[in-house]
């Protein structure tokens, strides 16, 4: 009940004209970002972050999180109408969404996608509302070893549970952690890995890296491909919306199962991509006629969209409660918190109640407003795709440059952004994942500080990470997850049932 009272307080913080206008502004920008080729949620949030530097933190986070919700909604438009997944998690939506559009059921598919996005997000927001305060009050008991163990768990689960080649995830993560250490050592004041460069004294700002990795590289990749579109007719009428909503109870198992999968994979850093495929695969597996999937079945839209959005939203839970982001976008929002002088983690719930509960309230309101907005404006947003890419691409480049420069007012960051753009392009093409790199760059300093503080008290004895039941369990779990592929293989050798693999 305490959470309910605090949530009402959050709505009171939120319901001002200024915040509501910013919310609408964020949602519209977010849908633009989701629809435009070459831009995505993490990149859109990173580029627009400088706009919020002069705002109060609550208004800023509301606007940024609404850009995020908008981008999540916008991605479905291109997936269903044009068979172009704006984000990797929208790939599974195209399996049945696009065939539905080909059959003249685009409006039905879009309504299903937006509605299931809303349901997935709503379940995740409910989870955040009731679980985040509990986790954060529990985490108040954490010391440096416990925090390092949680960071370790995050890193190990990326390596062990990720779908990419393990050594590539290790390369990506260790590179991110190393680059996070460039500059002045926060403990001793010594300079590390600067090689005499005054520019590197400031360190490498992760937002600059993100803008390059996700923005510039995406432009290069998008440009490389054929940019021809052929869209299907969409006419969302109230009758179609009501008919889809009327049938929703029939799919309650799919919606609930996908929400659960999404929340689970969002909190653990499995990610929205894995969630959407798993949601889709399980819906297909438990269907009476699985062969009808891929031919325009509405459940094939409900399942991945619900799971992806539950995952994207619940990734904010560990960010708020522990200061550990569950996704790339959550990592950027966490960077925003630090820019605004807030310290993410359990103390946030104690020291900045207005901020936290304002944000949670904005998740509810942002999703409701976002749903109404996309349902009423699909043709307008989809028509953005009529703008030639030759006009869109340089505008995105300029936006990226503005975003990168504004973070530290440094020209060097523009060059750094360009360099990361090339790195991102090459890494994406050879299959080195970028999400672990971003996460490591964000968490690197915090993880190192926790490690060093843990080690100082015990003279460098690694046993500190097994010094009590709590830290021991987390560390052991981290090691189990790190070696999960080997353990899984061993379990299968002794007759353990084979785990479901995503279809793609």
């Amino acid at each position, binding site marked *: 009940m305490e959470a309910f009272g605090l949530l009402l307080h959050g709505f009171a913080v939120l319901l001002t004209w200024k915040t509501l206008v910013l919310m609408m502004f964020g949602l519209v920008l977010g849908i633009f970002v989701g629809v435009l080729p070459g831009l995505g949620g993490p990149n859109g949030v990173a580029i627009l972050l400088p706009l919020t530097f002069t705002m109060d933190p609550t208004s800023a986070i509301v606007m940024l999180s609404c850009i995020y919700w908008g981008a999540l909604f916008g991605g479905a438009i291109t997936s269903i109408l044009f068979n172009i997944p704006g984000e990797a998690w929208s790939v599974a939506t195209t399996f049945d969404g696009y065939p539905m559009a080909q059959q003249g059921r685009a409006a039905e598919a879009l309504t299903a996608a937006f509605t299931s996005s809303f349901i997935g997000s709503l379940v995740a927001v409910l989870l955040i509302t009731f679980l985040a305060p509990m986790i954060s009050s529990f985490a108040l008991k954490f010391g440096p070893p416990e925090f390092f163990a949680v960071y370790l768990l995050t890193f190990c689960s990326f390596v062990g549970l990720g779908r990419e080649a393990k050594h590539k995830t290790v390369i990506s993560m260790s*590179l991110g952690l190393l680059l996070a250490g460039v500059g002045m050592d926060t403990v001793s004041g010594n300079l590390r890995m600067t090689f005499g460069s005054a520019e590197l004294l400031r360190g490498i700002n992760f937002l600059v890296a993100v803008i390059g990795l996700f923005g510039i590289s995406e432009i290069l990749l998008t440009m490389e491909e054929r940019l*021809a579109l052929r869209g299907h007719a969409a006419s969302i*009428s109230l009758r179609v919306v009501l008919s889809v909503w009327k049938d929703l109870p029939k799919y309650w198992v799919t919606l609930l199962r996908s929400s659960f999968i999404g929340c689970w994979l969002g909190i653990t850093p499995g990610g929205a991509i894995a969630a959407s495929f798993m949601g889709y695969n399980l819906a297909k597996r438990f269907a009476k006629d699985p062969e009808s999937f891929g031919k325009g079945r509405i459940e094939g839209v409900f399942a991945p969209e619900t799971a992806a959005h539950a995952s994207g939203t619940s990734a904010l839970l560990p960010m708020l409660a522990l200061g550990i982001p569950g996704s790339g976008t959550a990592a950027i929002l966490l960077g925003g918190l630090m820019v605004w002088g807030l310290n993410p983690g359990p103390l946030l719930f104690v020291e900045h109640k207005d901020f936290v509960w304002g944000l949670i309230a904005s998740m509810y309101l942002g999703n409701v407003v976002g749903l109404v907005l996309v349902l009423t404006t699909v043709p307008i947003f989809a*028509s953005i795709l009529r703008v030639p*890419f030759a006009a869109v691409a340089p505008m995105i*480049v300029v936006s990226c440059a503005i975003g990168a420069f504004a973070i530290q007012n440094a020209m060097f960051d523009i060059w750094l952004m360009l360099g990361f*753009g090339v790195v991102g392009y090459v890494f994406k093409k050879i299959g080195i994942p970028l999400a672990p790199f971003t996460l490591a760059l964000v968490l690197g300093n915090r993880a190192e500080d926790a490690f*060093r503080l843990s080690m100082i008290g015990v003279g460098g004895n690694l046993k500190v990470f097994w010094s009590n039941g709590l830290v021991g369990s987390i560390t052991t779990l981290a090691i189990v997850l790190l070696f999960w592929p080997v353990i899984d293989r061993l379990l299968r050798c002794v007759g353990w049932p084979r785990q479901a693999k995503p279809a793609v």
Partner: protein
Amino acid sequence: MSQTDLEIIVDDPTAPEDGSPSVVSSGTIEIFVCLLLLALAATLGYDNWRTGASWDSTGPEPGYFPFYLSVILGGGSLYGLIAAFVAHRAASESFVTRAQARRVMAVFVPTLLFCLVMQFLGLYVASFLLIAGFMRLVGKIALWKSLLTAFLFTAIMFVTFDIAFDVIMPKGPLEAAFGY
């Protein structure tokens, strides 16, 4: 709810032709990247070892944590190098075709020039030149449309960042002439 029908057809006249020859294989790039990462790991590892990668009376030295990360990066890169060599013999998937490389360069070179020009003429003039030039030369869009779009976009950016949100961008002689 909207009743507007939507049908969008966009063709791409500059699309890369099918069957363009490969410039370089993915395997070769993987080997090159692993070698670069290995060199980076060695350089950073040496720097951290020089800074201090062991223990003193106050605890771990500044290079302790990054030194071991350099070792992990080096190990991962070495493994990647061996794996790429082994896989290279089996398959040689194209990293980029000649037509794709041309298109990528059509974005990358103007972006590079934009960053360079920005240092002398400021962000807004460089943005105007990039957008107008790119639309006209790469997109083959009418000159007046290119100039108008570039001007409007740059003006909106200036008003949004420099005036409304007070985020100061790099300026050049043109802005100085107007008192900014």
